């Protein structure tokens, strides 16, 4: 399906937002001001955005430890996210969640999640609610190559098929599970076949091509939304930074990341495709870049200047009532 101009511009802006958010965090991280573990999504933008551009606000996603990209793509507020990652009082989670637990239920974002594989069964439940309420909603969980081997993900796939819920399993193979190659951890010769064998269709995508992801996700989401039960998407992508900030990536060949950055980058590809096909004007895209950079800059400045959470909030919101 062809996207219209404003849809393409929006998608580009979302990808750029993620990219700049992450690249900036990578730099900021070295200042020591950002606490905890931070897992960056740079390189994978086409996947999050390709999926989420097919969703409504009332649809749900649930993310992984590498959650910023999915969160931004689903409409997470960038300045509030930045505040959260800096651990500030006015962060999206009041500084109690941080990078690994960024969430915005209002936007249908059921959170980044620090437990690999935990999101999929939760999304089955969100999809179940949509099915019971008959509100036409769907739920998506994102699943890394490493996560695809966790028992909870398999259980969720089977449960989703049994309950025939509108759930999309969005598999994202970025080549590595921490320091381990994807094909070491996945014993199956063909992971797509492994997913299909659970009883759902798999729509494959090229993770370096936004349009490919967008189309695969559209088909999967249509399938699920139409009451056919769960569907999956699968494709290969790459991450530019280490597993977490500080990882020297010596388990990757020298030059591997550089090659991806220069030859396969999803944003360069997007720019080239839309300008070659004369769908969008490069100047327009540059304008977005400038605007996004300013927003990120402002977000960082604000976050740095913002007050920390008051100490007494350490015991706030453990319960609704107790």
């Amino acid at each position, binding site marked *: 399906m062809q996207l219209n101009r404003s849809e393409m511009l929006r998608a580009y802006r979302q990808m750029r937002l993620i990219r700049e958010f992450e690249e900036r965090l990578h730099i900021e991280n070295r200042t020591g001001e950002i606490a905890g573990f931070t897992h960056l999504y740079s390189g994978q933008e086409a996947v999050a955005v390709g999926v989420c551009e097919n969703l409504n606000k009332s649809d749900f996603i649930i993310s992984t430890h590498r959650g910023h990209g999915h969160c931004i793509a689903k409409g997470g507020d960038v300045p509030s996210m930045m505040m959260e990652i800096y651990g500030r009082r006015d962060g999206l989670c009041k500084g109690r969640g941080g990078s690994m637990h960024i969430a915005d239920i209002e936007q249908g974002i059921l959170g980044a999640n620090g437990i690999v594989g935990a999101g999929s069964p939760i999304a089955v439940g969100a999809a179940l609610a949509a099915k019971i*309420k008959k509100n036409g909603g769907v739920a998506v969980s994102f699943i890394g190559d490493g996560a695809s081997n966790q028992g909870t993900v398999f259980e969720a796939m089977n449960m989703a098929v049994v309950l025939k819920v509108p759930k999309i399993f969005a598999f994202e193979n970025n080549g590595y599970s921490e320091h381990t190659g994807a094909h070491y951890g996945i014993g199956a010769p063909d992971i797509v076949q492994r997913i299909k064998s659970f009883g759902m269709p798999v729509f494959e995508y090229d993770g370096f091509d936004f349009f490919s992801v967008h189309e695969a996700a559209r088909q999967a989401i249509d399938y699920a939304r139409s009451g056919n039960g769960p569907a999956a998407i699968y494709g290969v992508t790459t991450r530019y930074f280490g597993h977490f900030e500080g990882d020297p990536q010596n388990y990757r060949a020298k030059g591997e990341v550089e090659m991806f950055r220069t030859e396969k980058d999803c944003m360069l590809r997007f720019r080239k495709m839309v300008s070659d096909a004369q769908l969008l004007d490069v100047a327009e895209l540059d304008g977005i870049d400038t605007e996004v950079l300013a927003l990120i800059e402002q977000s960082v400045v604000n976050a740095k200047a913002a007050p920390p959470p008051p100490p007494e909030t350490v015991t706030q919101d453990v319960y609704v009532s107790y």
Partner: protein
Amino acid sequence: MAVKTMRDAINEALFIEMRRDGRVIVLGEDVSGGAGGTGIRDAAGGVFGVTKGLFPEFGEDRVIDTPISESAIIGAANGAALAGLRPVAEIMFADFIGVCLDQIMNQAAKFRYMFGGKCVTPIVVRMAMGAGMNAAGQHSQTIYPMVTSIPGLKVAVPSNPADAKGLLATAIRDDDPVIFLEHKALYSRKGEVPDGEYLVPFGVGSTTREGKDVTLVAIARMVGFAERVADKLAAEGITCDVIDPRTTSPLDEELILESVANTGRLVIVDESNPRCSVAADISSIVAEKAFSYLKAPIIPVTAPHSPVPFARELERVYVPSPERIEAAVRSVMKAG
């Protein structure tokens, strides 16, 4: 009021709450029973018959049989709760928390806190717990110490049919995740149960016997044992406050502390293993906050530090007995 088993009292609470609120759903293994079989549906109503009859009335959208996938059961409950439903998930035996703890401990219990107070996760996890049926090491554990230790969870441990009904209704209406533990050996226990809608608040213990000499705190099945001992000793002139906390989280500290302020002596009966138990927990609260009232050592009466054995003769000595409780009460009477 009518006399009912705890099984029927819980079943009634489920009916009432499901009729009252269309967002309440039930899910778990064999909660109706017979799905995909060649015989009748609602064949089981759960292995203990607690969910019997729900399927015929509420249908497959609200009474959901699942595969044997406990992580996915609790996970699905969590997700459905975040999306606005009020799921009551059944984990057949509490021991199976081993295969779904993450969704309870790291997900349900923590969402609200980690997400800045911007969501609720109103799930109830019903689990059958406890020894007394010779079900051996993997089907007999009480697990309330573990779940009581986890911030973000509430934990109900009813000791009688009326409380079971009232606490379950409260659990379902509560916006926080609740672990609801049904003692298997109490399912057929009968008692008066109030008709219609009935709520027992969380964090409010009940004093089932009043006395002046010893405070006897007991959990779930142990409450009956404690009462028996209290009644027996009352004839000798030793009188006990028997306190059933009803929920271990929140815990009615005040009731226990006030009682100890009167009696000066405390015995805690807990069917769990001793280490880091609820008995230890209550003891430590009292040793901190009511120390000056204490006349005697605090005696926990618990199971030994061993798995639950199979044979009748072994399980009998494993579970705290009225005899051991009596001995503990006598020992604190002697001590001070």
